[in-house]
């Protein structure tokens, strides 16, 4: 196994271009688990640890190297809330946003926020830069359009409302893979976006439900009921050892409604 530790972004991109099937290593909280379980045997590992360029973070940009420990302090309430649910303090100290995107698990907790915010994923390689909307980037469970020579450098966040809520369903009080996760962003005048994780092959937006919620600044109980019903109808969950499709469908509606209610308070 070859191990490369570039000192700057350009060097990293050169390294990714130079090898056949290079594997970027960020916090290692997904990659090393895969290696230890013998699911993956990388030939070339490119460490991202020394790349300060990836750690930049402001209101419109989150670098791929920003850890969830840092994101716990985000100004965006939903981002801070989701960051707090990722693993344990030890995991959050190492785990990065870029790694979460790189793995692209349907249960990855940053994705509902990024999808609700209509974020763009920015990829770089020696060949240039690609800027892809979240739904262009994620194409299936653990599948993205990233080429092996590309690095995720960060995500661009368009302006978004301050009313936000994130919720995640799991049977432990913390450190649990979500059975359903949900992010709601709401403009006080009405426009609402809702994204859900763990209930489809990729993170998804419940657009029919968004329509009901977006129609007015004040929502009645009937509107909320309809919102909940539509979320449940729109998700595409499966049954596995973590939960049943029936429960996930039900819980998706419940947590989405509750998240919306939090935004309305």
């Amino acid at each position, binding site marked *: 196994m070859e191990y490369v530790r570039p000192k700057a972004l350009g060097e990293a991109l050169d390294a990714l271009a130079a090898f056949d099937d290079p594997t970027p290593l960020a916090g290692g909280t997904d990659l090393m688990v895969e290696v230890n379980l013998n699911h993956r045997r990388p030939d070339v590992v490119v460490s991202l640890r020394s790349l300060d360029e990836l750690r930049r973070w402001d209101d419109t940009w989150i670098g791929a190297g920003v850890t969830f420990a840092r994101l716990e302090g985000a100004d965006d309430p939903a981002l801070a809330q989701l960051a707090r649910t990722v693993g344990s303090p030890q995991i959050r100290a190492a785990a990065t946003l870029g790694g979460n995107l790189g793995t692209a698990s349907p249960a990855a907790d940053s994705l509902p926020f990024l999808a609700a915010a209509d974020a763009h994923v920015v990829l770089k390689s020696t060949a240039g830069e690609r800027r892809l909307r979240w739904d262009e980037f994620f194409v299936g469970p653990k599948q993205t359009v990233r080429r092996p020579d590309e690095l995720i450098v960060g995500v661009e966040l368009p302006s978004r409302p301050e009313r936000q809520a994130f919720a995640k369903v799991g049977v432990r009080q*913390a450190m649990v893979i979500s059975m359903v996760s949900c992010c709601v962003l709401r403009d006080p005048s009405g426009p609402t976006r809702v994204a859900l994780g763990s209930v489809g092959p990729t993170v998804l937006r419940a657009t029919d439900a968004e329509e009901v919620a977006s129609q007015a600044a004040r929502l009645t109980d009937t509107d909320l009921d309809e919102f909940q019903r539509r979320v449940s109808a729109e998700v595409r969950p499966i049954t596995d050892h973590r939960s049943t499709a029936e429960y996930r469908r039900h819980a998706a509606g419940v947590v989405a409604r509750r998240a919306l209610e939090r935004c309305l308070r």
Partner: protein
Amino acid sequence: MSVETRHRIRGGVGESVTRPDGVPKVCGAFQYLDDLRADGMLWAATRRATVARGRIVALDVGTASAMPGVHDVITFADVPGRPYQGQIVPDQPVLCDGEIRHWGEAIAVVAADDPETARLAAEAITVDVEELEPVVDVERALELGDVFRHFPVRRGDPEARGDVVVEGFYEMGTQDQAPLGTEAGLAVPDGHGGVDLWGPSQWTHVDHEQLVACLGLRPEELRVHISGLGGAFGAREDLTLQTHIALLALRTGRPVKQHYDRADSFAAHVKRHAARMWYRHEADRDGRLVKVEARMILDGGAYQMTSQAVIANAATFAVGPYRCPNTFVDAYVVRTNHPPAGAMRGFGTNQACFAAESQMDRLAAELGIDPLELRLRNALEPGDALATTGQVVTEPLPTSEVIRSVAALPLPDDEPGDDPLRLPGGTGLTTPPDRVVRGVGYAVGIKNLAFSEGFDDYAEARVTLTADGAEVHTAAIEVGQGMVTVLIQIARSALGIENVEVVFDDTSKIGSAGSSSASRQTQMAGGAVLRAAEAARSAALALAGGDDLDDLGVWRDGELVMTLAELAERGPISEWVRFRHPETEEPDENGQGRLHVDFSVAAHRAVVDVDPELGLVRVVQIDIAQDVGRVINPVQLRGQIEGGIAQGMGWAIMEELVFRDDGTVANPTFTDYLLPTILDMPPVEAVLVEQPGTWGPFGAKGMAELPTVSVTPAVVAAIRDATGKALRRVPVRPEDIVFGDG
């Protein structure tokens, strides 16, 4: 006690003595099994089955053997002695015998220069399997007649009828012991055809017995040593990697080490039996039990392991700690193609307790009697006959007192507030405070102490006085439970000497202490140490003509007459004891007889907050009152209580090894086999009821299993109280709460 020391000994019985291995463990200096090293050692890796049932049509180790750095590969054909192992019935092939009978079964083991080479070589072994239809359903296994043991109980009048009847069907999923330390071991050849073995064990002498049979060695050619274990909970009662590494060491002439990863560990050690149970309780209008009928089927998995003994416990504690004149039980443990089930904390009593206590609550509801009152009306007390075996309780058994004591503890009155960590869903922020419903549930458990059914249960110990103190020699195993501290405290109190050290002898140096299981070692190893220490003290006093003994030596009328150094030179004083508990009997054909030597009882109260719409549960508090005889070490005892509660609560709401329909395991990792974390663990209030027993040291009773037993039904009862749902299955999943029947 027969011996009374005149001076007050420090660190004796009744004090929260700090355990000698505590600080080293916390600092990382303690030597656990996986820390063991030997010069020139090889590393072993195991190739396992990926299907639940199949026939191996081709097994080729050629490529693996030829890989550079590989020294040996063993399969079933290489086992020199009896190729089957098992504590009660040797039916488990040391390595797969051609038919794969469960997911994860070991097929071949490689020894190589380093762990990575061993692993790659294990992967390089060709295993062609023709898949066969697995038996994954216990009812199907019963139909096929594949029964490891049927334990019937027939007591009283089968025609007896009560005024009220409640009938229920209950189910429990498979639990794993999940000890933090996975299996590891080291085997070192002695150069004369024999071998020294360090492995995960709860009872080195039975390991020795099995290993010499499988390895084809004379008993003196194998020494099984005791070393640092990171937990056991029953998982180390049966052999896992020991036979493999000992055989590889003998064949290669090199020390061989293996250290399982978590997936190996899930595959290799026995599980807690999944269960299906049907019950019918009949009572009179006042709530007195008239008749209990039960049919229980436990999933024994592919091999027998300790299933035979587990089913006896399930059957004989089928009614719980209650009187009942007419009892009819058919308890079966059957063979399936799931990984073998065996010992786990509670050993068959947990399953019975969940069903029986659920039934008691339903009976109380049916009668309109308070559930605790109903239990008090039926409480089993000394002089009563056990509802199943008919044996009369002769030792103290404060059933009513534990129930009353736990009920008398104050309930937490604090509302959850809006701290998310105190709401269901926790950091997930799923649940606003106004969606939370609180529930309270109770359950009472009973467990036998030490071995039952006529087993010749003994423990040996030797106490030797040295120039500056005393040594306790034993083969009893410290699995993390704190036995080492308890033995020191007992020896100190009995000898009058404070400087006591425990020496864990290998199998060649001392006889068996029995297993560190069945809540038995404080009474059994402790009982042996007490008697050996008393004998050593008497011998010292006699030799020096004194009337008291301490760390300086023997005293007479307040004057030192002989130092310990002089005693050791003149003596030496070394007393060996083999201690047995009062005899038990085998059951007759109706399951009747004095099967158990002694019992202990505990009552739990669980308080939960539930979000019924999402089916999420937060356990708010768990309280317990437990019959402990006499407290030897308060801190350790409370540690066992809290740990036991965490484990039993885990089973109630999250821990389950999930089997797919094809019999394979879906979640053999800690990502998906969920254990409670510290945020899931509630505060625990414990009342220790001390009614000294007659045969344990200083009146102590075994206590480490019961905290696990009745907490599971107590938590489920509390969730039922909050939601009104029937919840007949454990663990209770969110979907059971949301969609389950009322």
